[in-house]
């Protein structure tokens, strides 16, 4: 069952499970030490992490195809959450249907390893097709807003996320230590770890607000502390999971740390514009799926093109 994976990927999953066991143990200890305090949200958060890690691990461990389907499903949930959140036009029901239909097609290009089509399908073909479909329906009121928001959603939720899946089909021989799955694990782990690290650093030491208009809880201390932690970890993990040299892996850490932060506050800006705190209620303790993959929408394409330029 694991023959398509290199040993470091399996060790990586083992390590993640270890981190979660540790986190669960910390919450249990805190509950015992301070029975008067409520740790419900923290416990919910960690429970949701267990489920997310469980589903992700099973998908990656089963086969390359299930891994691709996993990311397609994440795109579907994110796009559905986005379409449920933003104002849409009744006239565009059929247009939305085509936007959803783009998901299996985009991930099919990944499965075919057809890079040329993968990289232009949404930015070119869907970009032209959806407005055409809207024109045929003929509703012109709010046309520009609808065309813009629909395509923004497709780019962020489908095109961006599909880059994480494309790692899986890159030539194995370029990354002999861990293959495509190693790169996916490296990207996903560092992105999610960076979120947690920025949050923890901010909670412990945060004072100077970094972007108060968009996200009042984000601080310079949180951002820089998280960035340093992520970059260190990126350098430590790189030899086991990637073909990156030490200087390259340090740059990768900075890239993931910075772009993860920007992805996070971009989705925050979207939520603030709409006037909601969480994008949904799918993941107890976290909010919606968009609250969890906000950073990944920026890190996935940027890290992909970084490594694609350097090694493929």
């Amino acid at each position, binding site marked *: 069952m694991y023959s398509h994976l290199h040993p470091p990927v399996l060790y990586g999953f083992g390590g993640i499970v270890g981190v979660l066991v540790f986190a669960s143990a910390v919450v249990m200890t805190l509950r015992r030490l301070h029975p008067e305090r409520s740790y419900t949200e923290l416990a919910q958060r960690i429970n949701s992490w267990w489920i997310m890690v469980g589903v992700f691990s099973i998908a990656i461990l089963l086969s390359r195809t299930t891994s691709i389907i996993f990311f397609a499903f994440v795109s579907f949930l994110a796009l*559905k959450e986005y379409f449920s959140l933003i104002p849409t036009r*009744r006239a565009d*029901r059929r247009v939305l249907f085509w936007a959803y239909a783009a998901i299996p097609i985009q991930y099919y290009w990944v499965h075919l390893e057809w890079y040329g089509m993968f990289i232009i399908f949404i930015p070119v073909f869907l970009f032209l097709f959806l407005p055409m479909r809207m024109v045929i329906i003929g509703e012109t009121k709010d046309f520009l807003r609808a065309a813009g928001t629909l395509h923004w959603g497709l780019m962020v939720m489908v095109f961006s996320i599909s880059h994480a899946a494309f790692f899986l089909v890159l030539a194995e021989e370029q990354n002999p230590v861990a293959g495509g799955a190693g790169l996916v694990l490296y990207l996903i782990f560092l992105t999610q770890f960076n979120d947690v690290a920025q949050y923890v650093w901010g909670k412990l030491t945060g004072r100077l607000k970094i972007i108060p208009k968009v996200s009042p809880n984000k601080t310079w201390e949180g951002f820089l502390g998280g960035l340093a932690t992520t970059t260190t970890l990126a350098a430590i993990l790189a030899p086991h999971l990637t073909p990156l040299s030490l200087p390259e892996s340090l740059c990768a850490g900075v890239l993931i740390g910075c772009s993860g932060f920007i992805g996070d506050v971009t989705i925050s800006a979207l939520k603030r514009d*709409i006037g*909601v705190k969480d994008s949904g*209620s799918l993941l107890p303790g976290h909010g919606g799926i968009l609250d969890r993959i906000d950073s990944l929408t920026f890190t996935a394409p940027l890290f992909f093109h970084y490594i694609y330029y350097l090694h493929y």
Partner: protein
Amino acid sequence: MLQQLFFLIVVRPLILIVLGLNVRHRERLPAQGPAILVSNHNSHLDTLVLMTLFPGRFLRILRPVAARDYFFRNRLLAWFALNIIRIIPLERQIADRTQDPLAGCTNALRNGDILILFPEGSRGDPEEMGTFKTGIAHLAKRHPDIPITPVFLHGLGKALPKGEALLVPFFCDVFVGEPLRWNGNKGAFMAMLEHTVTLLAEEGYRPTWE
């Protein structure tokens, strides 16, 4: 049996994966029959969503009340409505004053069933709440001890509005209210019911859709 299979293989995956529900106050749902569930109505999916809020073993006591003239248009639809959804057919136009239009509902409640009722009477314009018809008040007066749980649904009218066959996925809100009981006056009861559903509607954020 056929109903259980249909819900397990078609309805639950459709509702939970293709659509996705955001349920608030699930604990307010009746834990046993007899009870009445009342909701606003925007889509054929409403009935299916309300039925999936309960565990599978409840299916045999869940009885949606639905218009006879609509669901008995042809034999296939009638078979499906009676055997799979297990509706209680309701006569919308009563010609004969001697007949009791709510007899089916009363019998079901006496059996300990949970009725599902849409007081708007029809799906109407999607995502717009019409006025509630007073049949529910007559039923409440007749069964003053039975809890009436109001539910507000949002999003299903966007996913599958009246007159459309193409389902477009949206996350849907299901807000369950505190159970109500007959309060002795038809007008006051209807006002209380509509007010409760309106308050539930205000609990959540809804993007514009027009």
